[in-house]
């Protein structure tokens, strides 16, 4: 009896370890597989040239550029909104009905499916406001989508600043706004940056919101302004795998594109995680 209890404990503990191993093994498999297949495709030309011959040769530079522009655009839009919203929630509002409603709104917004954001962007920015499918419409759509991420990250960052910082500043006669801008934000800035970096990574990888609002399968021209259509890495992978007439060559290009996107996103996320761990260790309070 005693043996069997001990045995059962060992068995189930081992099983729970196995589930971690399965998932991390899959993660390793996915990354390793894309690296091994994509590495052959990657070359200087692949990274800097435009596509040639119906997407079977050449490179993906327009897609890289498009993804950078779209994710930066979304942050330019979402960062100020998210920052102000979080400052209000943490520094200004008291526990109350309004704050609870805002929190429900933020949480709900973060649960809205990406394709619904895409349709919203299509109906509002592309059609109703007449932007057409372009960088601006895509950035606004992506910005809406990452707004909850930024609000939450900033909230966490602000909450982690000890109350004594604020009290010291207020006791010296500074206003709440002065305290927030001169004392709280500088102390929280590295943590806020971490959240922003994560949001960039998320925006860079999204496909469904930009399908109808910004992205095209193919354009030789590089974007010239906010109202240009662009290629984007995630949409490019999808298009290579599902459209066109040269499946074999296109799949090879898709491996290369997937590797570039994966590296970009892993680099961004890895940087955020690294900064967070370092900030936590170096924290002085």
């Amino acid at each position, binding site marked *: 009896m005693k043996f069997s209890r001990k045995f059962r404990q060992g068995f189930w503990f081992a099983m*729970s370890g196995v589930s971690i191993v399965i998932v991390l093994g899959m993660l390793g498999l996915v990354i390793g597989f894309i690296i091994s297949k994509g590495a052959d495709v990657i070359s200087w030309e692949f990274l800097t040239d435009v596509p040639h011959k119906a997407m079977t040769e050449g490179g993906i530079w327009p897609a890289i550029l498009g993804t950078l522009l779209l994710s930066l655009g979304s942050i330019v839009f979402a960062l100020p909104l998210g920052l102000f919203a979080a400052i209000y929630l943490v520094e200004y509002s008291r526990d109350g009905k309004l704050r609870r409603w805002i929190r429900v709104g933020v949480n709900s917004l973060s649960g809205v499916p990406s394709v619904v954001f895409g349709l919203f962007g299509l109906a509002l920015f592309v059609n109703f406001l007449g932007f057409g499918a372009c960088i601006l419409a895509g950035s606004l759509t992506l910005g809406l989508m990452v707004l909850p991420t930024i609000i939450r990250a900033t909230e966490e960052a602000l909450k982690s600043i000890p109350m004594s910082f604020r009290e010291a500043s207020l006791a010296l006669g500074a206003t709440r706004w002065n305290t927030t801008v001169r004392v709280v934000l500088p102390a929280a800035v590295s943590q806020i940056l971490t959240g922003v970096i994560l949001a960039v990574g998320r925006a860079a990888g999204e496909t469904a919101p930009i399908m109808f609002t910004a992205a095209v399968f193919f354009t030789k021209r590089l974007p010239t302004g906010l109202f240009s259509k662009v290629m984007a890495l995630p949409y490019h992978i999808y298009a290579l795998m599902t459209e066109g007439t040269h499946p074999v060559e296109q799949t090879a290009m898709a491996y290369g594109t997937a590797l570039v996107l994966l590296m970009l996103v892993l680099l961004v996320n890895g940087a955020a995680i690294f900064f967070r761990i370092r900030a936590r260790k170096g924290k002085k309070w």
Partner: protein
Amino acid sequence: MTRFTSETVVKPLLGFFALLSLVFLAGILVTLLTESGPFFGEYDPLKFFTGTQWYPTLQTQNEAGEWVSNPQFGLLPLLTASLQVTLLALVIALPLSLGAAVFLAEIAPPALREIIKPLIELLAGIPSVVFGFIGMVLVAPFIKDLFGIPIGLNGLSASIVLAFMAFPTITSLAEDAISAVPHDLKEASLAMGANRWETVSRVMVPAARSGIYSAVILGFGRVIGETMTVLMVAGGGAALTINPLSPLRPMTATIALEMGEAVQGGPHYHALFALALLLLVITLAFNLLAERIRGGRQELQR
């Protein structure tokens, strides 16, 4: 004096920015309602909710023998497909997530936990289109060979990929729930002579169950809204079926696939907005439900 005025201006201004999230949410809802309104005017809602055929470009002959367009917008095949891949994905993900959550919360030494948790975060950061790509080039061929079927792009392949996408969300929430169980409960159980596994399985997990339910419900909301994976991997068949080895076309995939072809302002366009509206309602409901359950537990603990 100026400082007082700046403070009185700042607070409402910041409050306005905070309210924008609610405004955007309402904006999305209103947009979907207005864009799908015409659909429910033209097409019998009863036929939409009970129809078994999704065939937007169907043409039939009328009495005079002319071919006229007679689009069929039956929701059932798409809704069943969505529910099917989502539930199957959760069935696959749940044991893995629970095991991982128990491992992280109760078994792993802190140093190991510090390594594993960032790796799970990296998994969560992989774009869905990359998951879809992996589903196409890796999972689908494997499923095809395993079951000896002609094409591996089907509901099961999509569910497997979706399970790994749902894993980080469910695991981290379940782990939080298990870690939040008061220490007294754990110590009482250990003091009664239960070993660590008995304590985890009969005390900790039951005590954390509302948090775990809420994690699963939130996972459901995430997975049913996932687009690129099902678009690329589920196969796209719009027939009503409950066989996971057949090609399926969940709601999200239908929207993404057909919006490019639909005539703007036409019945098909409005029908796709109706799908999006339904999707939004489902995900919002599950989100609120998850929050309710979790919120209720927090109040109990206080």
